[in-house]
């Protein structure tokens, strides 16, 4: 098991080094003169800025020299200056990272909270109205883009009913949860959750649809196993069989793909953030592309990659703890 963890860590390290290398030489790959492009997209830049950028982005160095230069700067915590915002990239990133992280994690939790009961009920009552509803939910969920769900939610809950704010993030959910517990005051938490509800739901829906289907078929598979029959003949209660024996085994395939779904959720978050004016990495990245703000593009991509690699690593380690049957030597 230590071997597995070690190998996983090395792999994560290799991926990140590859990303850093790619980002370091990114600007060299742009056809034409990248600095000219940046200047034409950001009219405030002067000739001195252009010269500084040429050195900073390594247009006058070899790829390897630039990689070393870039890695050294990163090690010093220097991500460069954003062309558009005129601020250090790191300041922008550290402002935005918690927003994306919270949104992604909340969406994953929400997706599981929807998918597990739905998939379970659909499997236990195969062919019933619940099963039918779950199928319709899966088909619709997979076919509806998250940004459309987001817009429809805004139309209903903000424009028509006026219940929820259509954009912005409000107070950090983690901080307000902590405050709500400390002061024993749920109102603080609800005030913050109002902002998170619609973005998280629109992000979660596709994943919930996929997982509900997955859990349903995994449950059906497990229900056919001999040990379930044995548990029944032993006289265990239905409840105990369904939760302790069937659900637990049926969740394993879901846990396996949660890691991959995190990548999907990060991609989704980048899109959803643009629907809800969410102050996260995704909006920063999309704006950076529009303005050709290369230092900012490098920063957002690098940080998203770090976020993704560490979340998947975490899921893998959790998986190790949850399912002792895995043969680590083979992974």
């Amino acid at each position: 098991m230590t071997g597995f963890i070690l190998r996983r860590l090395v792999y994560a390290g290799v991926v990140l080094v590859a990303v850093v290398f790619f980002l370091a030489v990114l600007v060299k790959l742009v056809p034409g003169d990248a600095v000219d492009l940046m200047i034409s997209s950001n009219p405030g830049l002067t000739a001195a800025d252009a010269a500084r950028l040429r050195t900073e982005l390594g247009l006058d160095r070899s790829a390897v020299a630039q990689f070393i230069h870039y890695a050294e700067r990163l090690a010093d915590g220097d991500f460069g200056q954003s062309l558009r915002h005129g601020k250090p990239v790191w300041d922008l990133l550290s402002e935005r990272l918690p927003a994306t992280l919270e949104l992604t994690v909340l969406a994953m939790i929400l997706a599981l909270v929807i998918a597990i009961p739905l998939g379970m009920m659909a499997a236990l009552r195969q062919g019933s109205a619940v099963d039918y509803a779950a199928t319709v939910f899966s088909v619709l969920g997979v076919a509806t883009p998250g940004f459309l769900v987001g817009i429809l939610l805004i139309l209903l809950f903000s424009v028509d009913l006026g219940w929820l704010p259509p954009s912005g993030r409000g107070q950090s959910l983690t901080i307000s949860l902590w405050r709500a517990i400390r002061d024993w005051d749920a109102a603080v938490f609800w005030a913050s959750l109002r902002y998170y509800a619609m973005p998280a739901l629109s992000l979660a829906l596709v994943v919930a649809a996929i997982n509900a289907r997955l859990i349903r078929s995994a449950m059906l598979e497990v229900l056919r196993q001999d040990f379930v029959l044995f548990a029944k003949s032993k006289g265990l209660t239905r409840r105990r069989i369904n939760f302790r024996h069937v659900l637990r085994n049926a969740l394993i395939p879901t846990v396996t793909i949660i890691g991959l779904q995190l990548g999907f959720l990060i991609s989704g978050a980048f899109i959803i953030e643009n629907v809800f004016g969410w102050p996260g990495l995704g909006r920063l990245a999309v704006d950076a592309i529009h303005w050709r703000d290369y230092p900012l593009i490098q920063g957002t991509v690098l940080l998203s990659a770090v976020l993704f690699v560490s979340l998947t690593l975490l899921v893998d380690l959790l998986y190790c703890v949850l399912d002792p049957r895995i043969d680590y030597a083979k992974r």
Partner: protein
Amino acid sequence: MPSADAAAPALTAEDELPRGGRRFLRELLRSPKGLTGFVLVLAVLLIALFAPLIATNDPAEQVITHRFLPPVWAEGGKWSHPLGGDNLGRDIFSRMVHGTRISVVVALIVISVIVVFGTAVGLASGYFGRLVDSILMRIVDFQLSFPFILLALLLLAILGKSFWTLVLALSVAFWVNIARLVRGETMRIRSLEFVQAARGIGVPEWRIIAGHILPNTLPALVVLATLDVAVIVLAEAAMSFLGLGIQPPTPSWGTMISDGRNYLYEAPWMTLAPGLGIMLTAIGINLLGDFLRDTYDPRMARR
């Protein structure tokens, strides 16, 4: 999963390849799900093919008096512009119809590219194994461990926004699934008796791959490719919605939604029409894909 050939033993799955359209039609007429999907997909393809004949108004023409023109069923709507006008007075129906064409064109180009490339990589990896397989699969792993949007952003940063950047970004993002599937199928089929027999009588390797293995990967490949088309349509819409995909003035469903969301209150149909277009297309492709899987995929028959 109830499947039509439940009575047939597993081995015949290989023999029951879709020969001609008769079996397809017979199965299709029996499955309401498959039929719905087939009709939706056919409708989308026909609309894309005959776009200029269906929508005679110019999708880019701006008519001041048609700004926020309501759809025909609302008060003040006109039959000449059944879905009304958008914020610039362009005909929404016409933009929808021409947008269908864009979605179909992007999806067909991308799926062709990734099927060819993914199949080649999958066949090589699955057939030759060892070093080739290790190298190719490490590349696949690396790519799988990377969110699609980051790859797309990198390509956009290098190449700038354009139609071909979009096509390239989608192809790079989705070829991996195809390669993995074909690799798995190739490894399975390679060990079957008829391939061993062909080897035994000295059939050259390229003929084993092209004549025996490739045709047998097709059922599973067609199913996955069909389902992937839905993913591509949705991803194209998302990229265009962000302003990173299809660029104006070309009408695309994603950009139409992005234009429409600023006028949700005054003109919800600007958003709802293209939204419905995307959903119906994706539902149709998914239903058709599920039907094909239930009917033809040998991996389903073995269960």
